[in-house]
């Protein structure tokens, strides 16, 4: 099993950076077994091909605009994920939808997808998440850890620094 946890988003636009901020939190709090890669994808596109191609399971974390209330957490699985990016709800449709298109042609599409998305409170310029978003980051971190464990990956909590 090869699993990729990919947080995407722009950290300069407050809650738009939730995917990246969640990845930072994961890396700070946990150690992962060798079958797991945890990557800050930023707003990159084709550069991620090498990382994402041929993975068994890709767990994406992203800000999404579904029309639902700010703070709503959305979980999508497998073919719902490419469909989301095709319909361009996510602000990162460009990079990720291109990647999915490319992998369809090269035959390297990951077998499974899980997307943990959250509807942003703000996308104003600024490098911090909004105060409303902070507790949701912890929920997303837990969601990812639970999912990884369900997939049989080993996640170990780092010792608390006093």
């Amino acid at each position: 099993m090869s699993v990729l946890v990919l947080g995407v988003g722009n950290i300069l636009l407050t809650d738009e950076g939730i995917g990246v901020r969640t990845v930072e939190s994961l890396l700070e709090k946990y150690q992962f077994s060798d079958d797991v890669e945890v990557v800050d994808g930023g707003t990159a596109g084709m550069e991620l091909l090498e990382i994402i191609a041929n993975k068994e399971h890709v767990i994406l974390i992203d800000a999404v605009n579904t029309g639902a209330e700010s703070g709503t957490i959305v979980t999508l699985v497998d073919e719902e994920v490419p469909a989301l990016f095709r319909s361009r709800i996510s602000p990162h449709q460009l990079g990720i939808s291109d990647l999915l298109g490319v992998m369809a042609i090269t035959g390297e599409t990951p077998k499974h997808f899980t997307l943990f998305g959250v509807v942003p409170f703000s996308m104003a310029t600024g490098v911090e998440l909004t105060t409303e978003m902070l507790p949701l980051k912890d929920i997303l971190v837990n969601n990812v850890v639970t999912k990884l464990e369900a997939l049989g990956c080993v996640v170990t909590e780092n010792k608390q620094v006093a």
Partner: protein
Amino acid sequence: MAKRIIVDPVTRIEGHLRIDVEVENGQVSKAWSSGQMWRGIENILKDRDPRDAWAFTQRICGVCTTVHALASVRAVENALDLEVPLNAQYIRNIMVSAHALHDHIVHFYHLSALDWVDIVSALEADPKEASKLAESLSSWKLNSVHELTAVQNKLKSFVASGQLGIFANGYWGHKAMKLPPEVNLIAAAHYLQALEIQREANRIVTIMGGKSPHVQNLTVGGVTNSINLDSQAVMNMERLMFIKTLIEKMEDFVKNAYMVDVSIIGAFYLDWAGYGKGVTDYLSVPEMPLDTKGTEFALKGGYIAGGDLSTFKPITGFNDKYFIDGVKESSKHSWYHGEEALHPWDGETEPNYDDFNDEGQYSWIKSPTFNGKPAQVGPLANVLCLAAQGHESTLQHLNFVMDTVSAVSGTKIGVSALHSTIGRHAARAVRSGVLLDEMNKQWDLLVANIGSGDTDTFNQPVFPKGEIRGVGFHEAPRGVLSHWVVINDGKIKNYQAVVPSTWNAGPRNQDDVPGPYEASLMGNPIADPERPLEVLRTVHSFDPCIACAIHLMDTEHQEIVKVKAL
């Protein structure tokens, strides 16, 4: 009746761009280029530690990460007059060239080739004829009948399944598509092969940068790569040799496929050497520093006026007064307070949003000028400035492309054909060849320097009390990038990034003179207003790092057609 076409944003990642054109008698008669988003990223940097700025600036854009990081550390080093160890210069030069090659290859094949190549037509090609043509022009190993037949079968299965994926939004069968099926097949094959090659380029960035997509190895004063030829954990001989093999793979592809493809496509679209000229004052900055002080460069920059190479004036180093004093930004037609053209160190970013006013303010992008005039930046400017200096590798690749175009088209073409939409594509391929030649030289220099016992990669920055100013520039894939920083007591007081797309996509300036995008669209033919492919051809030739949606409007600005564009 004049019709209005609007190219509007769909993504906020790299900054929205909207292009409006009015079409009269089948030709573009007026054009406006408008940045549709203001983020004030520069304001985020105020009061921060200048050593941290690069980590933020590399998040400005999803495509041009590394280049903003590099320009930022150079700006702070310039303010401090800080020397950069040779190893760090060479590592930066190789890494950022790999980034540029990745960018150029992806831009040509995956983001713009489908403006010219009809994938569906490739299904009708005779693979034998295609292979014969391709092999007559190059020694690229993947032009065999076997390979081209396999590609054609793959395309057939995609079309049959109705899942065209990335090919889904092409302008198949458009009147302006002119390549024979065999050439379309060759281009489609190389499109797929380029997907592999761009990975090799990105691998170099990852190895040197420690991480992709956002590099970690830059720092004000050098790089954080540790060098020890015998150690397993750091930059060692094994890694350097691996990088060398990746450079060779890219070289094979760029010289035997990319440059040849651009030439063939150029030959069949020679009419596009007559469109898209626009602004022919060209600006480029020196790149690949060869000494610690940034006074010697492998690729020197300069300025060319009116497309006349004999007017070339050099820009020689990071302290060049001609460049530093020449740059100003006007916001007369941009949604900011103040009309006067200001130098970036004194630049202001106070938003003053109004509606889209054809004659007034209509963009978030400012209008940069060089000595009061707009300038075109990018690979074409870079290649012309190098050619004007007689740069050997540039002339060699440029002659190869022009000779191939002449041979395939049966028409002798000269440098004047480069001032055009198709010329910008040709120049990008030529620049890719030049970058590879220089990367090989930088690799040799790095290995020789380490071999001489020098393992330094970093000089400690020390910030003085009081105010200092610096500029960092970089000849990025899309052209001249400059970051301007004012530091007071070790904290950032002002920060302005003048990016390549600002130079090219800027609105009319303080004298109401149109910017390069706007000027280049004038007179472009529009064969089918419902599918305005030609607008995309010219805008894409600049490599704007944005996707666009096209809205076709009548003169009353009422939307009548909406076409999604790649």
